[in-house]
Structures are given as structure tokens and as C-alpha cells.
């Protein structure tokens, strides 16, 4: 028998030290799922989305949305892979384009993310608590719960409960990151358990049970009257593939925003190209699957038009016609079981806090990136020596979140979030353009990049091609808030545009003041940090 030669060695390595930071795909997926949110996105998928697009398929909207978001996720994973460090989007854009474009965009994103964190916390007193308390009042005859639910949604209730929520989130982020991750991990289990109960209730129930229980628990909004009353109040059903596609094109960020969050702490992920992509796609697929399965099971019992009408009446219906368009109410009404009810309540409220935690977490990482570039005081990047928690940055985000709670109390929860989709999309334009031109402006770095960063299709970098598609998608999202007032700025166009202009201008001023200060006091030109250094 011929001797088989040993394989030729590919690399000789000597004994040296050195490692890289790592968050694996599972960690990235957990962050993504929490930032998408099994609770708030779960609720709007069955309430607000069908009521906005009566006649369009819920599963169709989710699918089209997820497909476009997957393209966006790809671009952001490449941004993180090309600049694997804290605040990767800001870092890549400031080095590839110009810091005077990148910093104001990043500044506006953090400011509005902080406000949105507050408005998401305000979901607890305005949506989550009333949904559960009213349901428990109705299902288990608890009058106090109904009274508390009514108070919770008043401005005073929102401010009190919202402030407690902000303080709880702030307090939780004072602990080491690994504790925060454990808290998030527990939230993922609780959130999935809540959805398991919902899916189980839908899977084991029947149409007759749904109708009978609905009429039993909601006598002032009977099942049969929902569609006629909605029609009387102006609902119009537009069916067809076109409507569903259009809705999907618009609702992506509303439902799935958050899957790309690990890009903001790309410096802490292992094998950035792979982890960021699969973490983002994984969280997108997980939430799509959970919501789509929920919709599929629910639609076996209830027509889609009815779900749309119930959601519609919640917003514009007559005062004496009771509405409960919450997926959690549908499930707890179909299977009135105290244990199931508690699992859903705990899971949904806990994951709303988790959602705020992810916003606090990513904002603090972006602030780190600014402090590293010495645009903001190093004090903002202070890390507690024992816990490793970024206390000053987190406190700053908490202040913004409290403002978000106040805005939600005295305007509406959606007021802040409406604006956020506009702000998030418009600030993304800068890093996405940076990603498109990166292979050309930073050729050497792009060629040295790992994995899918330097892949090409037909001789053109994939990063550029997908980036162009993503740019068109976010530009469409910006345009859609003007074209479709229901998901847009409504009557607040001038206010929102002025606010955005003022914040972007404030970002420019902060950058210029920082540059002037460092130059005059320290003899340092911070522009040096953005400069390319050619080899000698």
C-alpha cells in the first residue's frame, strides 16, 4: 500500500499572546430580538399594522418588511465588519466621508434613540399595563385593575410609572455588562415563554370559543358588530398584492427596527462579518417567525378584516364601543388561565424594560466612540472600575429617556416614535453612503477586509451594490412619512423638520467647538484622528 503524505501545513505559528473581544452569534441575536421587541412589536403587529392597512395580509406585510430589512441588515453588518469597533456606523462614516457629516448624524441618532427609549418605557403605562389590567379586570372580575389601568394611561400615570421604568432601566445598567446580558437572557426566555402561551392558546382554541368568549368578556363591543361599526366609522379595505407590498415597504422599521443593533458595539463581537450578519438575520427571522406563526394561528379563528377593524376602532371608534385589539387579550380570552395570563404579563412588561436597556446600551457605546475621538469629554466614557458599567453615558441616556416619557405623557407615545422612524432613516443615509463608497475611497482597507466585506458581484463590490439598494430603501422610508400621513409626521411636519435641523446643527456646533477647544487648549487637532495615514 502506498504511503499517504501528510498534508502540507498552511501556517506556522509561534508561541505569542493576544486575543480579540467576542460576542457570539447567540449574543448578537439576543440583543437583536430584544431591540426589535417581542412585546411592543408583537402588539403593533396585531393592532396598529392591520388597522393602518385594512385588507392587506398581515403575514404578507411581515414577509415583505423582513425581506427589505434583511437587505438593510446586510449593509449594516458590513459596516460593522469594515469598522469593527464601538459606534461602527459613526466610525466608518467619519473616516470614509467626513466627521462633519458623520458626527451630526450620529448625534441626532443618539438623541432620538434616548427619547424613543423613554417612549418605549411609556408603553408600559399606556399600552402594556392597561392591556393586562383591563383584561384581568374583565376576565377575573377585578374592578381595581380596571381603575388602575385607566389611571395608568393618564399623563400623571405615564409620568409616574414611566419615571419608575427609567429608574429601573438606569439601575439595571449600573451592573456589569455580563449581569445586563443575564437580565436580557432571562428576558428572552420570558418573552418567548409569553409567545409560547399565545401560540398555544391560538393553536388549541377554536373559532366558536373565540366568538363566544369575546361576546362574554366584551359585551359592549360584540364580535358581530366590530366590522359594521368600523365601516360606519370610515374603514376602507384595499386588497391585493400591491397594497401588501406597499405596506411591507413602509412598516419594516416599525416592526423590526433593532435587528442591526450589534453593529453599534461591533468592537465586542467575535468574527464580526459572520456574527453581525447572522445575528441580525437570526433576530429578524426569529421575530418574523414568531409573529407570522401567531398571525397564521389567529387567522384560523378570526377573519383578518375583523382584526383590522378592531384595531381601527381602538383609535377612531365610538367611545361606548369597547375595543381590546391586543394579541395578549385575544390569547388570554381564548384560554382564560391565570398562570398563562401571568406568564404573558410578566414576559411582555419585562421585555419592554429589556427593549429600553438595549437602547441605553447601544447609545452608551456610540457615546464611547465620540469620547475616543475626543469630540465629547472623556468623562462621558467613564467606566466604573468595579462593575465596568458606563455610568455617566447611561445617566445621560436616562435623562433623554425621561424627556421621552414626558413627551409621551403630554403628546402621545406614537408622537415620539413617528418621528423616530424619520430620524433613524435620515441619519442612516450618511453611514450607508459611506458603505457604498468605502470600497473605492478606502480601497486598501476594503481589500484587506475579511469575509463577505470584500466579496463582489459582477466585478462590483457587494457592499456597494447592496448599499445602493439599502440607500433607496431608507430614502423611501424618509419619503413615506411625507407621502403617508398615517405613518408620518402628520401635522407636525414643520416642527419635526425644524427640530431635526436644529439637532443636526447642534451636532455641527458641538464638533466645531470640540475641535476649537482641543486645538487651543491642548494643541491637538482632532481631525488627525479621521485622517488616513499613507505608508512611508
Amino acid at each position, binding site marked *: 500500500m502506498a504511503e499517504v*503524505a*501528510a498534508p*502540507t*501545513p*498552511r*501556517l*506556522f*505559528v*509561534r*508561541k*505569542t*499572546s*493576544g*486575543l*480579540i*473581544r*467576542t*460576542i*457570539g452569534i*447567540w*449574543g448578537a441575536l*439576543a440583543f437583536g430580538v430584544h431591540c426589535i421587541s417581542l412585546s411592543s412589536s408583537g402588539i403593533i403587529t396585531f393592532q396598529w399594522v392591520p388597522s393602518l392597512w385594512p385588507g392587506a395580509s398581515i403575514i404578507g406585510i411581515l414577509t415583505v418588511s423582513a425581506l427589505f430589512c434583511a437587505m438593510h441588515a446586510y449593509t449594516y453588518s458590513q459596516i460593522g465588519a469594515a469598522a469593527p469597533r464601538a459606534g461602527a456606523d459613526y466610525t466608518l462614516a467619519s*473616516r470614509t466621508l467626513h466627521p462633519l457629516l458623520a458626527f451630526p448624524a450620529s448625534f441626532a441618532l443618539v438623541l432620538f434613540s434616548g427619547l424613543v427609549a423613554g417612549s418605549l418605557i411609556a408603553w408600559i403605562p399606556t399600552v402594556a399595563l392597561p392591556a393586562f389590567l383591563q383584561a384581568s379586570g374583565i376576565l377575573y372580575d377585578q374592578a381595581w385593575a380596571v381603575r388602575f389601568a385607566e389611571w395608568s394611561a393618564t399623563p400623571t400615570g405615564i409620568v409616574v410609572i414611566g419615571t419608575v421604568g427609567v429608574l429601573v432601566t438606569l439601575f439595571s445598567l449600573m451592573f456589569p*455588562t*455580563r449581569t445586563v*446580558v*443575564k437580565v*436580557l*437572557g432571562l428576558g428572552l426566555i420570558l418573552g418567548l415563554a409569553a409567545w409560547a402561551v399565545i401560540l398555544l392558546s391560538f393553536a388549541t382554541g377554536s373559532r366558536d370559543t373565540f366568538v363566544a368568549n369575546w361576546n362574554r368578556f366584551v359585551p359592549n363591543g360584540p364580535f358581530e358588530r366590530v366590522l359594521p361599526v368600523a365601516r360606519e366609522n370610515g374603514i376602507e379595505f384595499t386588497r391585493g398584492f400591491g397594497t401588501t407590498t406597499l405596506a411591507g415597504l413602509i412598516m419594516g422599521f416599525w416592526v423590526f427596527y433593532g435587528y442591526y443593533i450589534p453593529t453599534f458595539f461591533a*468592537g465586542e463581537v*467575535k468574527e464580526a462579518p459572520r456574527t453581525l450578519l447572522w445575528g441580525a438575520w437570526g433576530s429578524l427571522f426569529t421575530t418574523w417567525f414568531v409573529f407570522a406563526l401567531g398571525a397564521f394561528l389567529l387567522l384560523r379563528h378570526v377573519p383578518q378584516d375583523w382584526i383590522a377593524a378592531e384595531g381601527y376602532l381602538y383609535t377612531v371608534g365610538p367611545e361606548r364601543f369597547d375595543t381590546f385589539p391586543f394579541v395578549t387579550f385575544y390569547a388570554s380570552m381564548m384560554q382564560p388561565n391565570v398562570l398563562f395570563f401571568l406568564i404573558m404579563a410578566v414576559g411582555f412588561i419585562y421585555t419592554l424594560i429589556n427593549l429600553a436597556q438595549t437602547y441605553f446600551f447601544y447609545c452608551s457605546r456610540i457615546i464611547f466612540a465620540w469620547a*475616543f475621538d*475626543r469630540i465629547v469629554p*472623556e468623562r462621558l466614557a467613564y*467606566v466604573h*472600575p468595579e462593575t*465596568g458599567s458606563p455610568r455617566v453615558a447611561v445617566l445621560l441616556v436616562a435623562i433623554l429617556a425621561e424627556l421621552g416619557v414626558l413627551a409621551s405623557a403630554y403628546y402621545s407615545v406614537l408622537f415620539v416614535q413617528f418621528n423616530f422612524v424619520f430620524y433613524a432613516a435620515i441619519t442612516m443615509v450618511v453611514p450607508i453612503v459611506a458603505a457604498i463608497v468605502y470600497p473605492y475611497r478606502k480601497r*486598501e*482597507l476594503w481589500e*484587506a*477586509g475579511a469575509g463577505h466585506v470584500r466579496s463582489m458581484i459582477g466585478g462590483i463590490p457587494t457592499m456597494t451594490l447592496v448599499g445602493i439598494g439599502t440607500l433607496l430603501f431608507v430614502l423611501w422610508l424618509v419619503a413615506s412619512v411625507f407621502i403617508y400621513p398615517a405613518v408620518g409626521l402628520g401635522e407636525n411636519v414643520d416642527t419635526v423638520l425644524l427640530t431635526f435641523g436644529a439637532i443636526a446643527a447642534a451636532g455641527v456646533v458641538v464638533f466645531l467647538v470640540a*475641535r*476649537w477647544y*482641543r*486645538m*487651543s*487648549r*491642548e*494643541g*491637538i*487637532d*482632532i481631525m*488627525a*484622528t479621521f*485622517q*488616513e*495615514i*499613507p*505608508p*512611508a
Partner: protein
Amino acid sequence: MKRFFARRSDRPGAGWIRLLYTADLHGSNAAFRKLLSAAKLHRAQHVIIGGDLTGKAIVPIVKVDGRHEAWLFGNREEVETDAELRALREKIGTVGFYDHVCTPDEARALDADPQALHRLFVEKMNARLREWLDLAGEHLEPLGVPLWVIPGNDDDPSVDPVLEAAGYARMVDHRVVELDEHHELVSLGDTSMTPWACPRDYPEEHMYRVVGDLLSKVRDPDTAILNFHCPPRDTKIDQCPALNERLEIVHRGGQLVTTSAGSAAIREGIEQLQPLLSLHGHIHEARGSHQIGRTLALNPGSEYAEGILKAAIVNLEPRRVKGYLLISG
């Protein structure tokens, strides 16, 4: 706008100097050449390299049927012409590795003979280091910018004679030297133990002894600059992933567990002496700054494998750190 900022000079001059510090170049030709370029670009008056000069791996470029093939970062690279071969070798040098053109049998023989492999490493490392030192002389001498160098824990002892024999660079390991008329530079490449037991890893007892010995020679702590490869323990600039007994990275709940990898002796030394500035490398991912009393400690981090230079620009008055900036490019 440019004119407005130009009036506020960032040029070193009256009463202050500018240092350019880097560490952990690990053989990356691109990072080293960028360092020389950065010295000119940023008008540095002193360049300091804080250890870990040499690369970690040799990539065998194997001759097969008139072609050459190699594996770089898991990708198979195949070249045919001399020009392509030169480009491949350049690419390998950019990321800090060394190339070795050989036959499959030679590669297998090297794999089976650790001593021969070590000799090859020594030959490759020292050859590149000599090239770098010559290049530094060509670029920095006309600018009048001194280059201060020490080895790090990953550098084989064989590099010491190469550094000592350098024409322009000054090897200052285990020494206290005058940087200029105001500042002393105190340098040390030794580090506390790592899990890999590298050439200059030592137990803390050794670190306490050598650190104590060096710091006792400092004349004026208020103006002293430490150039210690290893960072002080329990700081932001010494955080790295924790490892288990199989040298695998520890995760809990999907999250990386970090630990301090700096030296307790260096931390105590800084706390007691309170020098003006303390410059460190070693932990590539722990880029940043940490204040220990009046002492500013910096670690510029390293991304040598991407051909990126990470460095610190520090403006120094005689008794005060005027300003600093971590740069990368």
C-alpha cells in the same frame, strides 16, 4: 473654516513637545511604514515603540507544479507569475506575517522539526527588524526625530542584539534615559505571566523587583514618562477576554467574560511614583486611557493584522500633559 482653525496652532513649539507612541506592530510592514509617515504628518518630536515588534506566524508559499500557493486567513491564494508572487509576499508582510517559499516536503519537514522552525522564525524576524530600523533611520534622521524602542513579551530574546546594534534607533529596555532636557523615559518590555508563557513573561515577584529597581532611578517623578509594554492592573487599558484551562474564551449567557491582564507591580509603581505619563501596549483590544492619580496612562491598542496603525499623539509640557489623541489609520 480652515483658516480659523489654522490660527490656533497645533504645532509643537514654545514650552511643549509632541510624542508619537505605538506598540504591538507585530511585524506589520504597513503599520510600521504608516508610523514613519505619521511622525512627519503629525510633526512628532519623538517616536516611541513600546514593544512587540515581531510577527507571530510564517505563511509557507508552496511550489506546486510551477505555481505557488498559500493560505492567508483561511483563503487559498494561488499565483503564477513573479509579479503575482511579489504581490502575495507583500500582502503577507502587510498583515505582519512572514513568508517562506518552499516545496511541500520542506514545509512538512519544518512542521516536524520545532528547532528548525524556531531558527527560521529568528532569521525572518530579525531580517525584517533590520529592514525597519534602516528605514526608520532614512525617514526620521532627516527630520531630527529620535526613535526609542523596546521589545515586548512576544519578542524573542534574539531581537535584543539587533536593536542594540541599530544605527539610528535607541534600544532603551530596562533603562532610564533623558528624553529631552525636561523628561526622563523609563522603559520595560517585561510583562506579567500570560497563559502562553511568552519569551518575556515573568511572575509578579520579578515584576515587583525590576519595576522597583527602575523607578528608584527616576530623578523627578513629576516629569517622568513610563514606557512599559505591560499595562497597570485593574484599569480600562488592561481588559481582555478571560480564558479557561483549555485557553478557550469564556462566555456566560452569550457574553464575553473579561479579566485584567496587567501587572500589579506596575500599578503599584505608578500609584507610588505618580509619574507624568505612562505609555503601554500588550492588550490590543484595550485601547484607551486611564487616570491613576495624576498619571495619565495610555494604550493606543493594535490592529496590525489589518495593516492599520494605532498610535497616541501626546503633547507634553515639562510638568503637564497638555493634550493627547489616539489616532488610527
